[in-house]
């Protein structure tokens, strides 16, 4: 079956513009995660969705960042008024129900965002 799909694979935008990044998780996975990987940095947790529960937004760096998950499947990460420091690779992952962090996460290839 298909893995986690992210689009676009690359996005170049101008400072101040809004961007939307899309993630299609593996079918049947109820948990979905967004991470940010900056050059020379590790993985930074942003947000995670688990079924119909309220998402854990504790990792979002500012109110310019938001995410939705429609119908328990596809997720969109939106960054408003992009800044140069937002340049990074944004990774999405999904897993079977979260079970307090016990389950394997399956990652997409990421979206490389460049803010000029």
């Amino acid at each position, binding site marked *: 079956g298909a893995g*986690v799909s992210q689009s676009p694979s690359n996005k170049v935008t101008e400072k101040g513009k809004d961007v939307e990044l899309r993630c299609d998780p593996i079918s049947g996975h109820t948990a979905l*995660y967004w*991470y940010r990987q900056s050059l020379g*940095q*590790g*993985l930074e*947790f942003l947000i*995670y969705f688990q079924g119909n529960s309220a998402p854990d937004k504790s*990792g979002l760096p500012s109110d310019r960042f938001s995410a939705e998950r429609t119908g328990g499947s596809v997720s969109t990460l939106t960054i408003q008024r992009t800044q140069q420091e937002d340049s990074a690779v944004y*990774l999405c*992952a999904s897993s079977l129900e979260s079970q*307090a*962090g*016990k*389950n*394997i*996460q*399956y*990652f*997409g*290839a*990421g979206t490389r965002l460049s803010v000029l």
Partner: protein
Amino acid sequence: AQSVAQPEDQVNVAEGNPLTVKCTYSVSGNPYLFWYVQYPNRGLQFLLKYITGDNLVKGSYGFEAEFNKSQTSFHLKKPSALVSDSALYFCGLGNKLIFGSGTRLLVRP
């Protein structure tokens, strides 16, 4: 504070030699620990995990990791490195969705 540390930015080994990539953690309660590998321009791939049970965990591609509660460590090991093992390795704490900063493994022929 709950955290994961990978103290080495890069590990260099010769092909055929054993390798170790270090990871230490700090968490309240029982840790759920993972290792993932990232090849260039790819997402992370699962290698192995420790949830409970035997302290020595065996995973994909001949890798294994040893959970040491007293030292709060979960080091990744392989008896004989391959050039194709060269990649970026991340240790993760499942409980808090925290990952270490990553260790770049370079295996020279």
